[in-house]
């Protein structure tokens, strides 16, 4: 089964009121099991690309196919969001429950799991990321690095089949970066990482793509 996980065909997208489009006739493909790095200068549209895949933004033209299904309407994306996890560029934007445990259990609850099971899943995920003892910590008061890790836990708790990470290392110190590399290496799902740090990408992905307004060009290293 070598059907691509994500396919974007001839996507056109412009922010309302912006003078020029971010994407025009944009094409992109992600194959199963791949670990891909996305690079490109500031403002080239990397975040926009991830938000298009999650249905947080809608293209003005073109089609998006995810897991072999064309997605168009809000309803289609509801399913996509069950299977694809997105880590925001800014961890502050991702956490909104008072305590860590509640925040991690939020996703499973939305998936219809009963509370006891949701808590069970949350605890297991925390264990896996070495977040033991954080259950009742207030999310708002965590340090930058801890917030990133908890955000990752909230996403992983939904057991996604694909992970999108938007600049996971910005503002993190060396130690936390190493921990993140370690965690990512232990995952057995496909993921895509946006990053400006070549060093971090070298440790986590095998291929990198350069995002342009028209396509996503593989870089041969």
């Amino acid at each position, binding site marked *: 089964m070598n059907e691509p996980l994500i396919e974007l065909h001839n996507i056109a997208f412009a922010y309302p009121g912006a003078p020029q489009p971010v994407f025009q006739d944009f094409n992109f493909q992600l194959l199963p099991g791949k670990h891909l790095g996305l690079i490109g200068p500031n403002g080239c549209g990397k975040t926009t690309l991830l938000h298009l895949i999650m249905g947080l933004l809608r293209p003005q033209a073109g089609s998006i196919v995810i897991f072999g299904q064309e997605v168009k309407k809000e309803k289609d994306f509801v399913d996509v969001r069950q299977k694809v996890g997105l880590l925001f560029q800014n961890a502050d934007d991702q956490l909104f429950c*008072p*305590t860590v445990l509640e925040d991690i259990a939020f996703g499973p609850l939305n998936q219809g799991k009963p509370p006891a099971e949701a808590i069970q899943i949350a605890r297991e995920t925390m264990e896996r990321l070495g977040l033991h003892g954080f259950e009742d910590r*207030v999310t*708002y*008061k965590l340090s930058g690095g801890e917030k990133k890790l908890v955000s990752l836990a909230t996403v992983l708790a939904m057991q996604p089949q694909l992970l999108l990470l938007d600049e996971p290392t910005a503002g993190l110190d060396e130690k936390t970066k190493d921990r993140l590399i370690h965690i990512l290496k232990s995952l057995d799902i496909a993921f895509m990482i946006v990053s400006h740090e070549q060093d971090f990408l070298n440790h986590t992905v095998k291929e990198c793509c350069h995002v342009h307004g028209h396509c996503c060009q593989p870089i041969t290293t």
Partner: protein
Amino acid sequence: MHISEGVLSPAVLGGGAALAVVGCAIGLKKLDYEAIPRVAILSAAFFVASLIHVPVGPVGAHLVLNGLMGLLLGWMAFPAILIALFLQALLFQFGGLTVLGVNTVTMAAPAVICFYAYRGLLRRQGMPAAMAAFACGVTGILLSGLLVATALITTGQAFLQVAELVLLAHIPVMIIEGIITLFIFRFLKKVRPEMLEGIYA
């Protein structure tokens, strides 16, 4: 519920404006210069709350949160709500200029009443504080609905049925506001107790 321009009688408009001026004067007196940015953010919150739609069965309602505003601001809820309504009137033309006084009073007076009525209970721990927060949300909307109805009926007996319907529409909102105010209060108490200082002063 905003009342639009051109509905109320001059006497009601004038009375509302006068009360609003008094309330704002007291509120401004209690407002320090350093506190302005913080009150402004709550004012902005009140503005944006009316854009958040929550489902109530098949229909939707938008949040008002005037009970919460009272709990956080006390008398300062008057200027905060006035500014929020003024901006709504300017940017979206919700409500209006001549009804600004009346609308401010219908929203802010319940806020201040809630503040003084539930302050003592809110200071306590556990169940009593939670119940008081719930009651705060309910009372805020209930009084607000009653005041709107009063404004309409004083304008003319013809508005009797309209006023009844307005009150009826407030009932589901009341319960939701209660629940939401309760959860917000618990959240703030846990995450940022400094924001609740007003009730301890």
